[in-house]
């Protein structure tokens, strides 16, 4: 069987299929919606092939056009990127199944093209080893995201899309300026090569490019002052898209920042300053979410809060901290994606996004309410669920050095997770314990929409009751990340 | 032999009832003013063991002092029935005997005896404390000789009393 464990295929296959959709659209008409499913199915196979290789030798490198790395564009999948790629392709596959039923409006094939491009962009950004490639992938994702946010073509979707377009393009241009500065300084675009050459520069010379790249990626990664577009964009987008946006796109951007800060710039002094960003994002996200009446805006703000939480965990700097960050990333992606899919189904049947109209859902839509509850419990960090282990890890990591600052951080983090629990509970109280006002006939969501949510919840439950393999995997991933020299040598020397 | 103890038991219980008569402090008409002097130091009825008590359950004597109109009769009957068995009723003054100066008024009861069995009457339009003391002495003698049996009469011809009461109270 031909060896398909080549990361480049991860990008090639979906691009090919996206192109195919455009070509076959006139003939296949309705059949077009099955192509993304096939695309991401194949991608998923490739990832499953990749897992054993990465687990054995830590990193898998593949170069295009066969020539040596400093010049060729290479693709590197180490443990951390495998971790995220797995989530991305899994979500992509499941949401594409969700889209089979969810997308009814006219320009269906345009939606599917943009959707495939969005997920490919994300996987590309995670997998790439070349800085300029990261910029291209960033462009592809942003543009397809702008299109998808404005898909519903009503007033607030258009306004949200436009706002996101402006902010996104500013971000992309800042990122480009940063990359160009780095290219001018080091002469190469390959991440590992830059990482090696950049050592010679003093702290001050590395300052400006880092600032630009950090802000560029920060806009996409929903950090504190830069995330103003997110609360409008995610609710306006169709639920399937917003589950990808919240689930994996912001996480990919944060991965970008992590890769840049640690592997390339090796900025350990800066990391403590980033804690401030993490905490501010967490605080603003959670408190804002507490006051929302619209369920999707509430989930969007909660995404900001959770991103703040795992960015704070990453910026603790220690291996335990990063391990906690990766666990929280996984927990958040899976749980938030389920929440958006389930909420999509509920809005699909109830017809309104206001939380008060969800009264009595617990009785009428038993399965979706149950899925919502499990995902919410895991996100909040209730004991038996996966979120509890990640929150435990983050707090333990914070308090490795007990001083006034760390206790203050812990108090803020716990208070915010209390607020998060409070507003999720408010929704569940309405859903389960309030009687529906008028007897509107509310059917359960269609089967195809529920299957993705069910698989995600099953994964969450499996992780909750048997978390040890994932925890050890995250620990090794954190160790690899911190040991940046391993990455550099393997990319440069290893071929 | 037991008849003798039966006899002795009745004698002792009569003696006990004679020596400790508890008076129900229940005053209907104008006669109540006569009671404080009999209780306090000048005439001191406590010498004979007569003490004013508040609730019918604890009292032995029901003093109907003064005129009895229809509304009060209802209360008197309830109180009388709430009192425990060896109970005695004393009619104070002429109003209890035959309605006194209100004999022809529409609401006053003329003969108290028709409604509840009265053991002793005291004549006089509000008898003085000396008369009350002699009445108590007389009542004690009646109890001793066993003739003060108003409560038995009430039980024997209960129907008679009830008809009279129903006639008046409706």
């Amino acid at each position, binding site marked *: 069987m031909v060896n398909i464990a080549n990361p480049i295929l991860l990008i090639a296959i979906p691009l090919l299929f996206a192109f195919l959709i455009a070509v076959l659209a006139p003939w296949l008409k309705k059949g077009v919606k099955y192509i993304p499913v096939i695309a991401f199915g194949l991608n998923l196979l490739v990832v499953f092939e990749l897992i054993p290789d990465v687990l054995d030798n830590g990193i898998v490198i593949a170069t295009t056009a066969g020539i040596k790395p400093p010049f060729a564009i290479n693709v590197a999948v180490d443990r951390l990127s495998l971790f995220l790629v797995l989530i991305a392709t899994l979500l992509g596959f499941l949401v594409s199944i969700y889209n089979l039923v969810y997308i009814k409006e006219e320009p269906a094939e345009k939606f599917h093209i943009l959707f495939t491009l969005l997920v490919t962009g994300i996987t590309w950004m995670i997998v790439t080893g070349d800085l300029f490639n990261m910029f291209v992938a960033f462009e592809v994702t942003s543009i397809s995201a702008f299109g998808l946010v404005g898909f519903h073509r009503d007033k607030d979707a258009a306004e949200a899309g436009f706002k996101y377009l*402006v*902010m996104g393009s500013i*971000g992309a241009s*800042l990122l480009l300026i940063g990359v160009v500065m780095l290219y001018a300084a080091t002469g190469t675009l390959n991440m590992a090569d830059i990482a090696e050459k950049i050592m010679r520069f003093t702290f*001050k010379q590395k*300052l*400006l490019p880092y*600032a630009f790249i*950090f*802000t560029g990626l*920060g*806009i996409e990664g929903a950090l504190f*002052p*830069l995330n*103003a577009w997110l609360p*409008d964009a995610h609710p306006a987008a169709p639920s399937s898209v917003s589950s990808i946006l919240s689930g994996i796109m912001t996480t990919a951007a944060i991965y970008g920042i992590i890769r840049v800060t640690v592997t390339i710039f090796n*900025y350990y*002094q*800066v990391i*403590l*300053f980033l804690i401030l960003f993490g905490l501010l994002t967490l605080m*603003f996200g959670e*408190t*804002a979410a*507490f*006051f929302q009446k619209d369920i999707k805006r509430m989930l969007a703000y909660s995404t900001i809060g959770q991103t703040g939480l795992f960015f704070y965990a990453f910026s603790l700097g220690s291996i*335990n901290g990063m391990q906690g960050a990766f666990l929280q990333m996984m927990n958040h992606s899976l749980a938030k994606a389920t929440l958006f899919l389930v909420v999509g189904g509920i809005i699909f049947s109830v017809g309104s996004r206001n939380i008060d109209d969800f009264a009595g859902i617990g*009785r009428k839509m038993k399965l979706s309410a149950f899925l919502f509850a499990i995902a919410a419990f895991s996100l909040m960090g209730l*004991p*038996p669920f996966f979120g*509890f*282990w990640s929150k*435990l*890890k983050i*707090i*333990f990591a914070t*308090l490795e*050095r*007990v001083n006034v*600052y760390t*206790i203050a951080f*812990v108090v803020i983090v*716990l*208070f915010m*997770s*209390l*607020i998060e629990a409070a507003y999720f*509970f408010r929704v569940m*109280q309405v859903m389960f*314990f309030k009687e529906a006002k008028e007897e509107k006939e509310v059917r359960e969501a269609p089967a195809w929409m529920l299957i993705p949510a069910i698989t995600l919840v099953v994964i969450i439950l499996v992780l909750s009751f048997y978390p*040890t393999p994932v*925890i050890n995997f995250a620990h090794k991933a954190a160790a690899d990340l911190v040991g940046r020299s391993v990455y550099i040598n393997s990319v440069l020397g290893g071929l | 032999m037991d008849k003798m103890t039966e006899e002795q038991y009745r004698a002792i219980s009569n003696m006990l009832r004679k020596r400790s008569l508890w008076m129900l402090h229940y005053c209907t008409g104008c006669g109540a003013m006569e009671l404080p002097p009999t209780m306090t130091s000048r005439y001191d009825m406590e010498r004979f063991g007569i003490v004013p008590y508040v*609730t*019918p*359950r604890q009292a032995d004597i029901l003093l109907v002092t003064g005129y009895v109109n229809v509304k009060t009769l*209802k*209360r008197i009957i*309830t*109180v009388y029935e*709430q009192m425990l068995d060896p109970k005695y009723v004393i009619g104070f003054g002429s109003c209890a005997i035959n309605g006194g100066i209100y004999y022809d008024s529409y609401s006053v009861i003329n003969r108290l005896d028709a409604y509840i069995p009265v053991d002793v009457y005291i004549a006089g339009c509000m008898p003085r404390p000396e008369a009350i003391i002699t009445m108590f002495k007389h009542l004690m003698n009646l109890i001793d000789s066993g003739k003060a049996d108003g409560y038995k009469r009430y039980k024997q011809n209960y129907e008679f009393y009830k008809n009279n009461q129903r006639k008046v109270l409706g």
Partner: protein
Amino acid sequence: MDMSLGVLLATPFVGGILAYLGGKIHRWVRYTFAILFSLLAFIEIFFFYNTTVGNYVWGRLFGSVLVLQINPISWIFAFIVTGISFLVILFSINDVEGHKGLDFYYLELLFVEGAMLGITLAGDLITFFMFWELMSWTSYFLIIQGGKKSITAGYKYIIMSVIGAYSMFVAIAMVFGRAHSLVFKNVSMLLSQSSPAFVIWFFVLFGIGLFVKAAVMPLHTWLPDAHSEAPSPVSPLLSGVLIKMGAYGLTVLFYGFLSVQLIGKLAPTILPTPLLLYIVEWLAAISIVLATFLAILQEDAKRLLAYSSISQIGYVVLGIAMGSSLGIAGGLFHALNHAIFKSLLFFVIGGVIYRTGTRNMSELGGLIKKMPVSFIGALFGIVALSGVPPLNGFVSKWMIYEALLQKKEVFLLIMAFVGSTGAFLYLYRFIHSVFLGQLPEKYKDVKEVPFLMQLPIWILSALTIVFGIWPGLAMNVIAQGEKFLGITPIKYTLYGFPQGTAMSSLKVINISSVLIIAFIVVLALYLMLPKERFVSQYDTYAAGQVVTPETKYNYSYGFYMFFGRVINPIFKWSADKMYEAWARATKVFGDYMRRVYTGNLETYSSYIVVLITIVAFVLLIGGKLW
């Protein structure tokens, strides 16, 4: 068969799931599973009577091993948990018959029992904390099943217990930072070597979590709402068992992790007990007195019992925080007794609510003729709770008083005693307004509660007598527990205490036997006298007025209004108002923070520019802000 701790811990959870699934099939399948598994858990407990099973490893996490253990102290609390939960399930079969969502209710009931069992069996801090939070959540789901008002009560309950849980979480994280293994032995070893400041931090943070659950005065405001609004079979579980977990936690904290000498070292010991424990004692004493005064002024029967739970758990905490072996034994024994008679009282009032539908004391009355069994249960409950000799409340209160006298802590004894005299007031109020007095017209045809609801009342009343006359039964387990904790166990006999332990000896059997003989003598005299005839409740002294069913000839509203005039000035300042003020403050603060997202594009882009300058500036000065 060798019964491992894992099987014991799993029984309630498995029972809960089976009951939930069984409920889908048929009503009775659910009930059989629920009763079967809670009874099984109760029986399994007896396999571990007086045995100390060491570390049963059930998991490994972040380098620290997750362990279960059982020792005589945790055996007592496990016995309370399984026993009372079994009775609660028996009671709730008839009581919550008509409600919706019953499968979920039984699932939660058994999960709470499992969580509390987990706490008592926990051998290391992570398991302890995990089951602690699980207990808070599952009991929250139970509370909010009690109707509309219970949702707000539940909300307040969960916020306060989660704040307590998180303060405990910080304490555990601090210890994990130092000693990477969180098994109780390592924790106590670490604490004995670390600096006093660290130990005080740990004591305070861990203690706050426990005080919230044990409803010690300043942190008690959730209890009256949660216990009175919860569905009637859940209240006995809450006040009978849930607050005992706080007491168990305190025992583990004071004598498991730290020891009396270690706490003594922390601060100057001019006082009879170490300073930290002395503060805890004063908190407990204050909560005894104030909770009793509050209970006296309550109008709603369940709120009255809830406040009485706060004052009784004050005794337990006072006993445990005392440090002397007699005091700790008294505290633990009172925890057991309180679990028995408080659940008994809540079962009785649950039955009354089941039949009459109201729990407002001024509407009830005269139920003794219609519900004699509940009256007997209530009678045993209040006699036991007020600590009157023949029943079990007396022995444990007596031990706590003697221990206070031995340690010469006089003012605490005064407050404890006033609390117990105050108990007579509100207990008489409870039994009088519900069972004695005039029977209102609308409750004329009230029947007795069905048999399944009477069973817990019979069992618990019997238990109050058994532990009242033979306190020795409970004493040998408590003495074993004290030996495990390293405290000199108390000397005891089956009927009381010999000369040495307390200030002077006690033989409970003498008191009860003399009482019974005297009762027989007086009864004989009474029967010789002339027979008495029964009289209806309307044939009563009303200064001649004829009492008819319409005239509400009853004194039950504002029962202690005159006493209220004496103590009302104390309650101007209440902890509840303070917490509401804080809640409003956080809401306002949150509102301001929300203003950041203005909504127009220009401000957003200005944010970006501002950010770049900040990042650049910070990097310029070397990125080291602190």
